[in-house]
């Protein structure tokens, strides 16, 4: 009897599998017949999802932030309104628009919110039925999205609209977001491919990608809210967090010695030995390109091209006009040593307050006049006497510690000597260890026997 039941259930499962393989996403026939009409089509099977999505960071580009100093706990922060030197503009001051003509008489559309998954008429943080209908579900969920359709244009009323691919073809290729869906936006943030985050997610650069995993396998969404880590420079969050230990546990190694390290050393420290992306940018001087448009002067580095800096981090953030980075110490009982990508950006500071000023990119992109960009942003923000603010603005540098959470490797992970060798990558002195402790920590006594055994095993 039990055997018969098992066979029956296997048959049912097989039938389901065959149906799924043959038809793909349920509702396919209906989409083929009626076409794709935007979120309303999705809502027929997924009611309430559009409204739900409007409450997420992907739509609002902001959230309340509770781990960064000098912020108002009642205000939401993020790409929408932040001022820092990787992206000296934001959605507010550098809203998507047609910029003034350049020396060649050409204009173009540009703005920080070009990656916002709406149509720009319903923009960052908008709400209501119109916003729900404007969501570009397929840009995240289709594997056959045609990016030629996702271009800004002016409608008959002269408003700037972001196009979307709402074709039936794209809608018939829906499913869980692939790495390509995520990287379409996240790869090119900050002014170009691998400029901001500096990591490629592919089989050559990340052990998870090599195993066939995709972004949302770790950043597992719950009702469209995406868990994120504690990158000191990535403030907005959906209230969900992701960590290596969620999957790997707190004893991830065979070696007890390595497992002891987990209490004080973040996984990333050994398993992400390299970083990448821009190391410095100058927003006060823009360079003219071949197309006669100007871009911020940027020192770019590829994935795995730079070495991280290590610091104690308790997951709270020091936030000052010239510094954004980790708080923490060896003795606070909460911190671990993490790797960071160090970035330095030059931009204009307010001569009176010393606060970092933001920039509207439209004027400098067309003419190279960066102070005109500061003036335009100051006007948008309602600052008093924008012309004077721009004229008196003082150039200065800001150091930003970016979290280094991708480019994960198993085979090239740091080993004992990489850190405990005399010329190891960890600067124990800078991390708060005394001379006597440093001497002990960098003596072969600490790792010699273990590595000799490993050597024997390997050969």
């Amino acid at each position, binding site marked *: 009897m039990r055997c018969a039941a098992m066979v029956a259930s296997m048959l049912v499962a097989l039938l389901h599998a065959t149906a799924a393989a043959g038809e793909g996403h349920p509702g396919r026939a209906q989409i083929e017949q009626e076409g794709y009409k935007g979120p309303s089509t999705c809502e027929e099977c997924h009611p309430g999802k559009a409204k739900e999505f409007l409450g997420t960071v992907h739509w609002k580009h902001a959230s309340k932030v509770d781990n960064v100093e000098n912020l108002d706990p009642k205000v939401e922060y993020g790409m929408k309104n932040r001022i820092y030197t990787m992206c000296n503009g934001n959605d507010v001051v550098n809203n998507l628009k047609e910029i003034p003509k350049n020396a060649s008489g050409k204009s173009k559309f540009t703005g920080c919110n070009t990656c916002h998954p709406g149509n720009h008429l319903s923009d960052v943080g908008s709400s209501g039925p119109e916003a729900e209908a404007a969501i570009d579900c397929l840009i995240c969920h289709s594997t056959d999205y045609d990016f030629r359709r996702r271009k800004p244009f002016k409608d008959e009323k002269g408003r700037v609209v972001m196009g979307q691919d709402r074709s039936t073809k794209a809608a018939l290729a829906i499913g869980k977001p692939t790495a390509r869906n995520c990287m379409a936006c996240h790869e090119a943030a900050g002014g*170009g*491919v691998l400029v901001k985050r500096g990591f490629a997610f592919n089989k050559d650069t990340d052990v998870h990608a090599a195993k066939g995993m995709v972004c949302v396998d770790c950043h597992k969404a719950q009702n469209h809210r995406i868990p994120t880590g504690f990158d000191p420079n990535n403030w907005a969050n959906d209230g969900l967090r992701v960590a290596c230990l969620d999957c790997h546990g707190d004893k991830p190694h065979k070696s007890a010695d390595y497992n002891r390290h987990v209490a004080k050393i973040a996984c990333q420290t050994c398993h992400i030995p390299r970083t990448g992306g821009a190391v410095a940018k100058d927003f006060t001087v823009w360079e003219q390109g*071949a197309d006669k448009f100007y871009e911020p002067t940027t020192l770019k580095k590829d994935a795995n091209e730079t070495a991280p800096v290590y610091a104690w981090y308790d997951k709270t953030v020091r936030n000052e006009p010239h510094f954004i980075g980790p708080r923490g110490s060896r003795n606070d009982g909460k911190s671990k040593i993490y790797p960071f990508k160090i970035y330095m950006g030059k931009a204009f500071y307010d001569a009176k307050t010393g606060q970092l000023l933001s920039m509207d990119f439209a004027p400098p992109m067309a003419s190279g006049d960066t102070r005109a960009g500061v003036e335009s942003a100051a006007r948008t923000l309602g600052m008093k006497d924008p012309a004077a603010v721009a004229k008196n603005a003082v150039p200065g540098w800001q150091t930003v510690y970016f979290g280094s959470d991708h480019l994960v490797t198993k085979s090239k992970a740091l080993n004992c000597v990489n850190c405990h060798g005399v010329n190891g990558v960890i600067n124990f002195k800078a991390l708060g260890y005394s001379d006597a402790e440093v001497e002990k920590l960098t003596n072969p006594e600490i790792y010699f026997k273990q590595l000799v055994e490993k050597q024997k095993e390997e050969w």
Partner: protein
Amino acid sequence: MKRAAAVMLVVARIALGILAIGGVAGAEETKMVGVITKIDIAGKDAKTATVTLKDTKTEQEVDITVNDDLTLDKLKDHRIQDGDEIRCKYEVKDGKNVSTYFRKTAGC
């Protein structure tokens, strides 16, 4: 006889070494920035594409062969399209300019 064979072996090794160095020199990377004027890719399952770039300095058109999956993917879904400015490195292999680096210059 043995000695002659040994000499021949050394000569052969040196010759191979020179050829190898020549090979490396021949595979030197060329860098360019150019605007896409034409994309030739045969459908969704294509394993290669030919992209014509107009060099922004010399205004000459250069045909680039793209074989890497990531860039092919971007060509297929048109994340990279006609008119985009590209920073490219390529090596000449079998008479073709094979891309080793192919990225849009513009960002967000």
